[in-house]
């Protein structure tokens, strides 16, 4: 492990507060964890050099203006972390009835006990940076939606980092029965920095969560985090994950079917250029019968970029009548880039229908030829085809404002890819 990590852990050891029981557990687990290397299966393709190299100095301060992205027509409540500190003044927010947002450190002890019981119950233990987050977080932002409440405005969680900052954020979202909520997680910054950001979602029976994670750090920002979902009976999850690469970006997504007849859908796409790396590990646990999962993952890797995808579907014994499908399509744009994909099935029940497919190729030459024969330049045709490949998933985003905001960014990214 690196110097700063050891320091951070030593510091965490001295802290005593309401989170201590969980922190101590994580610290003792960390003591037994072997630092991942290329031989560790979950980090086979992803080098941790940027984490090891990271040296923490005093973080630069923020200029307020640059902070939040404008998204036209997107109605939302903003919850902002700056360098890991929660800076939104909750008293100033007018919350719709049935929605409560608070920091666990400021809640009463009964609430804290409740948060403690849920803390890391959804996020799996195996992830070394998840454990690190457990050990280093100072507070938990708790968002709760009461039973039968539909929250109209979306919640936007933004995590911004300045130069040389490190941040460890933790959010717990609980949806009651028949509740409805939209959460959009935004991670941004391109300066040399390091963050671990984990969000745990407990989705109640018949509840519906619309979820986005925009992992848009670029440049030297090192980002390690995850979104973890637990679905009760008939819960409905629609999640979209968008990634730009950086020196090291890794996202872990876990979807656990804990109640029968739940439905989980995840669309993910990432576009990588330069020497960027993006690594997505998505795990679906079907612990009960009659669950349905749909996953679509599309990747474009250009220049010297490296894309990693691991999609695991685990069907437990007795999880009969499960339907699970994973579709992974990848475009490789250069022979210095690489795509490593590993869709996995682990199945212990017989009456299930599971399938996965993965392809890696370049843009269809016939399509390119067709467009050129219609007078479109090769470069432009390439951008159009790339865009079309990703746009199929953007079209499926339930929130049109977010889709509209994303499209031009994608276009720009594609035209940049072309210049090289």
């Amino acid at each position, binding site marked *: 492990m690196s110097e700063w990590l050891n320091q951070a852990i030593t510091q965490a050891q001295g802290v005593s507060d309401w989170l201590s029981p969980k922190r101590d557990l994580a610290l003792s687990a960390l003591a037994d964890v072997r630092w991942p290397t290329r031989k560790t299966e979950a980090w086979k393709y992803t080098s941790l050099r940027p984490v090891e190299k990271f040296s923490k100095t005093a973080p630069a301060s923020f200029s307020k203006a640059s902070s939040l992205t404008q998204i036209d027509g997107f109605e939302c409540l903003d919850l902002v972390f700056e360098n890991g500190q929660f800076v939104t003044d909750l008293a100033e927010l007018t919350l719709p009835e049935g929605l409560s947002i608070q920091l666990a450190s400021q809640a009463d002890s009964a609430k804290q006990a409740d948060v403690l019981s849920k803390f890391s119950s959804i996020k799996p233990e195996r992830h070394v940076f998840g454990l690190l987050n457990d050990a280093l977080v100072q507070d938990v932002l708790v968002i709760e939606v009461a039973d039968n409440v539909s929250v109209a405005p979306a919640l936007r969680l933004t995590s911004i980092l300045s130069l040389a900052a490190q941040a460890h954020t933790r959010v717990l979202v609980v949806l009651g029965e028949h509740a409805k909520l939209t959460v959009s997680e935004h991670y941004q910054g391109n300066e040399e920095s390091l963050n671990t950001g984990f969000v745990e979602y407990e989705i109640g029976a018949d509840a519906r969560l619309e979820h986005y994670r925009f992992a848009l750090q670029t440049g030297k920002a090192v980002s390690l985090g995850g979104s973890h979902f637990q679905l009760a009976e008939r819960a409905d999850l629609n999640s979209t994950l968008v990634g730009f690469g950086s020196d090291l970006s890794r996202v872990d997504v876990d979807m656990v079917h804990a109640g029968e007849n739940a439905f989980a859908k995840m669309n993910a796409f990432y576009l990588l250029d330069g020497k960027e790396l993006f690594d997505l590990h998505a795990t679906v646990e079907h612990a009960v019968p009659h669950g349905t999962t749909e996953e679509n993952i599309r990747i474009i890797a250009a220049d010297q970029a490296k894309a990693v995808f691991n999609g695991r579907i685990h069907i437990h014994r007795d999880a*009969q009548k499960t339907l699970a499908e994973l579709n992974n399509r990848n475009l490789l744009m250069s022979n210095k880039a690489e795509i*490593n994909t590993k869709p996995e099935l682990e199945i212990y029940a017989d009456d299930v229908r599971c399938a996965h497919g993965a392809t*890696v190729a370049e843009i269809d030459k016939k399509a390119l030829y067709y467009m050129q024969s219609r007078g479109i330049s090769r470069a432009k045709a390439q951008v159009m085809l790339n865009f079309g490949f990703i746009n199929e998933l953007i079209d499926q985003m339930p929130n049109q404002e977010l889709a509209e905001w994303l499209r031009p960014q994608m276009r720009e990214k594609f035209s940049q890819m072309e210049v090289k």
Partner: protein
Amino acid sequence: MTDQIDKALEREYEAGFVSDVESDTFEPGLDENVIRRISTMKNEPEWMLEARLKAFKVWQEMEEPDWAHVDYEKIDFQAISYFSAPKSMKDKPKSLDEVDPELIRTYEKLGIPLIEQQMLAGVAVDAVFDSVSVVTTFREKLSEAGVIFCPISEAIQNHPELVKKYLGSVVPTKDNYYAALNCAVFTDGSFVYIPKGTRCPMELSTYFRINEQNTGQFERTLIIADEGSHVSYLEGCTAPQRDENQLHAAVVELVALDDAEIKYSTVQNWYPGDENGKGGIYNFVTKRGICHTNAKISWTQVETGSAVTWKYPSCVLKGDNSVGEFYSVALTRGAQQADTGTKMIHLGKNTKSTIISKGISAGRSNNSYRGLVRMNPGADGARNFTQCDSLLIGDQCGAHTFPYVESRNPSAIVEHEATTSKVSDDQMFLCQQRGLDPEKAVSMIVNGFCKEVFKELPMEFAVEAGKLLEISLEGSVG
């Protein structure tokens, strides 16, 4: 129905007899002396002993791998005997008449055509019994064509230049834990050399059988197909029923030089252990072939035996336009565990590979496909197609798929698809409606499921494989 299932599940392992053949067996244990003794017994030249001792050092420094999706008690390498030769083999037989009749009966029970049937089948057999190659038939006819087919121990004596050049060239000593062990202690195996432009006049075949208790079998096979040649090689395996686990750690190396073609077929029926997973063979095998320009290697395997299987027949597609194929049927039942698949490493331009894997799990078994397809930056225009389908019979078994796809060349196309399902109710209904009993129906459906692979097997093996599956599946219908 349940009675039927129970009865069929109790079905005994048909190759589980022990042959009463006197044998010379080393005391269990492994150190440099054991390796020296093996080498001396085999009357090996100095360079071979040195290679063995070097491999032993490498092995001692390696760790046993634990990434496979299998669970078994750690192997005590000191409790294994590393050499066992049937005693009557001391003076090697000059012809079939001199072979111990008990041995011949063993093979007859296994149904391998060693004598007359062989003529009809046109199969030349190199039978490996425990650690020693018993007899190689049809050698004369083969040598007329210039084909060398002999035990590898003989090849070390008679063809050292070929062995030195190619042994370890495809699977290096350090490749993996069991390969290193094999390099140190291998006792026998087959050696095949097909000269330039020759089409081997008959199918070559090896039959492996572990007979002695507490022995491991470490055979080493090396097949060299020189430019423009063609060979089809068959391999079959069985072992008697024992309560202890026995280790089988073989290494097979194939070298297909320019324009050559090697077809390697395996029917593996090692003793799988009893219903509770007691006993059975640990089958930890390294098989790999290298294809030079325009060459082709095709692996076909039907895996029904072994308590634990850990096996990935692979192709390194080094030359331009070379072709690799992998066709596999793996059936597990009882408490069997199989982690098997292939690796296709595309290095040359326009290389092509096809992977068809069919996994069938029944009982409480676990069956995993683990495969790697790698397109290196130089593999322009390379193409891979992978299909792995799993069939589950019963709700206590597991079927898993772990495909690795690594692409570094944009003009290469990789396609992977996998499905998992049970025998569909509709199909069963249709068959039963036509008057088939459920058992026959399942057998028919499974046969259809495996058809793509069976059609790749040579005739005799296809029949055997079909029969093996049918027997193994008896009563698995729920």
